[in-house]
């Protein structure tokens, strides 16, 4: 700007004014500018509840009443100016009693910040050009033709003749600049931030502290009923319930119940909660109970049945999940598991026991697919047990195996089945030596799965067919 580059100038002119390489050419895209302006207006909502973009290059903010929050109008505006500057914009600011006045002063008044005091609007705009009144081009030209260049001169004209000579627009703009006519702006609506759905929370406070188990049990059931009602209204079921019992003079007791599948059945939830409540140390008495469904899942409405017409798959599954929940809440979630096949040929790693509660219900999930029909023992020992073997010839079939203190005479021996380590595994502890597996039968009919480590030539029993 200092070099004299103005909007509307040709690119060649600007290049002539500025030193070599000082001109950066970017395509003018009004839509992107508009979007950016709207974003700025959204941002400006932190200074005032009313902010509106004023395309193409303005921002209107109604700060009346907001100065209280910023300890004064000047502080507010300077803070706004600094913030806009930090965002990378060069801004001219004006504070005035009316939008019209502020518009003109910001564009045609002094550099930086101008503050027009209450009642100083006429004085502030009278020295500005008539363009500062937000007039259309035709009206401006008409005013210029009769020698009116300044807004003050336009204000001095007799009011009665203005509409007839220049149309109604000029009078309205004059009045708006002086604050005589109302002006509406279209403020940005604040974007609602994403807020998590309020968890279902129910609470009861006792009249006085109580240590009676019956009272607490009744209250918990009551809370469960209330919670189930609210969950039913939302069409969801609880997957985790947190209970807090506030006690007199001591820390509150917190209990948590985790479910494998969303449920809002009071009967089931009570079956999980009841035994836990019984064991709570109530101290000097419980003052209140709060119950929160901190994790919920969708649960579609189920038609109540008057007569049992038959069983559906869904209800059977629900029964199983209730069983799983009950087990998991008594034994711990990791003690209720399902086996998931893993794509590997290493026997001890071929299946993973996953806790049932950690299971995500995936559609189309099909475990068991792609399992090769290998002959594997029905019992795989947790860790292979070292054994001593005797073979008649070094690489021939085994004749005796000493295992668990007994000597087994081998009558049949099939193999070897060679299982190589997975070379793509990184650590040496994850890889074992190449193994040759043999399926052997002793004379009593016991079948063992023994292997030899090729490195070191050691023998182990890895499994049994029982």
């Amino acid at each position: 700007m200092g070099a004299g580059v103005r909007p509307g100038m040709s690119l060649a002119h600007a290049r002539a004014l500025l030193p070599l390489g000082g001109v950066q050419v970017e395509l003018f895209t009004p839509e992107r500018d508009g979007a950016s302006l709207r974003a700025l207006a959204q941002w400006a909502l932190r200074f005032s509840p009313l902010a509106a973009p004023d395309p193409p290059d303005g921002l209107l903010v109604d700060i009346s009443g907001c100065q209280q929050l910023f300890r004064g109008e000047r502080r507010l505006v300077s803070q706004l100016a600094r913030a806009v500057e930090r965002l990378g914009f060069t801004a001219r600011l004006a504070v005035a009693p009316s939008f019209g006045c502020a518009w003109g002063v910001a564009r045609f008044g002094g550099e930086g910040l101008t503050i027009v005091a209450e009642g100083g609007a006429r004085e502030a705009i009278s020295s500005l050009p008539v363009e500062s009144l937000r007039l259309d081009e035709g009206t401006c030209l008409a005013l210029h033709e009769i020698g009116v260049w300044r807004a003050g001169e336009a204000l001095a004209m007799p009011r009665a003749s203005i509409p007839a000579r220049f149309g109604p627009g000029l009078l309205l703009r004059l009045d708006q600049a002086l604050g005589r006519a109302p002006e509406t702006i279209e403020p940005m609506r604040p974007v609602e931030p994403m807020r998590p759905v309020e968890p279902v929370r129910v609470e009861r406070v006792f009249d006085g502290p109580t240590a009676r188990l019956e009272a607490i049990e009744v209250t918990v059931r009551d809370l469960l009923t209330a919670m189930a009602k609210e969950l039913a209204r939302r069409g969801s079921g609880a997957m985790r319930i947190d209970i807090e019992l506030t006690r007199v003079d001591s820390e509150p007791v917190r209990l948590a119940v985790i479910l494998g599948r969303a449920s809002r059945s009071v009967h089931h939830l009570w079956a999980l909660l009841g035994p836990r409540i019984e064991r709570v140390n109530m101290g000097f008495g419980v003052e209140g109970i709060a119950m929160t469904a901190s994790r919920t899942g969708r649960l579609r409405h189920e038609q109540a049945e008057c007569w049992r017409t038959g069983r559906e798959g869904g209800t059977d599954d629900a029964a199983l999940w209730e069983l799983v929940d009950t087990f998991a809440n008594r034994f711990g979630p990791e003690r209720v598991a399902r086996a998931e096949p893993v794509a590997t040929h290493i026997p001890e790693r071929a299946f993973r026991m996953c806790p049932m509660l950690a299971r995500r219900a995936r559609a189309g999930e099909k475990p068991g697919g792609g399992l090769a029909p290998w002959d594997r023992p029905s019992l795989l020992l947790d860790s292979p047990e070292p054994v001593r073997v005797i073979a008649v010839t070094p690489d021939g079939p085994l004749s005796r195996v000493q295992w668990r203190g007994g000597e087994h005479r081998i009558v049949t021996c099939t193999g070897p089945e060679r299982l190589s380590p997975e070379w793509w595994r990184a650590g040496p502890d994850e890889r074992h030596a190449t193994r040759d597996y043999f399926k052997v039968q002793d004379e009593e009919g016991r079948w063992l799965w023994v292997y030899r480590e090729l490195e070191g030539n050691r023998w182990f029993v890895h499994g049994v067919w029982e």
Partner: protein
Amino acid sequence: MLAILSQRQGLHDLAERVRAIENRPAGQAQEGDTRGVPTGWGVAWGPARAASEGESVQGQTGAPGLLARGVVHEWFGPVDAPDAARGRGGQSVWSPPLCIFAHLARRSLVDAQSGGSDGWVVWIGRRCWAYPRVLAGGRDTDGALLDRSVFTDPPDDGGRLWAIELALRCRAVTAVIADGRGVDMAGSRRLQLAAKAGRALCLVARPAEEMRELSAAATRWLVRRAPSPGESAKESGEAGEGGPRWIVELLRCKGVRPVAGALRPVIVEWDHAQGAVVVPADVVRRAGGATDEGERGRTRRTA
């Protein structure tokens, strides 16, 4: 005299009604539920025997080739072949007959699915967890058993009994396979009642040294290891698939008068290709094979 007669008649009627009520399985509305699970080994027991056993066996427990639901089946072993009474196999390293359990669980699941419901199989006790590869089945099956198996490992004996009872009462469960070590008479009665309330096939494994313990189980089975001809025999075309073999013997069947030789021990073999425990072909041949029961026998004869 007439009065006494009618009184006696009334008492008789009453007794009949009480018996009927007692025998009616609780909570079993469907006809199919009272039926047993086919083991597929009926061929070895033979149909003629089954007929001579009469309906008491059919209704109650182990009709040949049929394992009743709603009662507890106790399984001992496996013990070594030569002498079961010695109980050599039952030290601390005891492990249940997992192949047979996997087979029965699969049969139970198939049975439940044919009845129109998707059942679940619950394995209770770490000792009873079969290596999942066995559950995944052979070439023929699609891993349904593995998919519908739940494994749980209660930390203590009380918890184990509680878990078995709860699983038995759950209507989504079609088979419960549990480690029943150390369950006493009261506990087994609890289990029997729970089994009666549900419709699950209940298989409880116990070590062989507990064979003398009292129990309320409906049947007790003993599994002994049997030498198998092995792969070599298979190649030479003699007999068998060459898998592990066991002798399954019915030790006790509640409510059935012991008839000598009624249910003689049956030799079964693990066929990993099918993922099933079957009666080996050579045994079928020896038994005469003249039977309608068991598809296995049929296929053998046509082959």
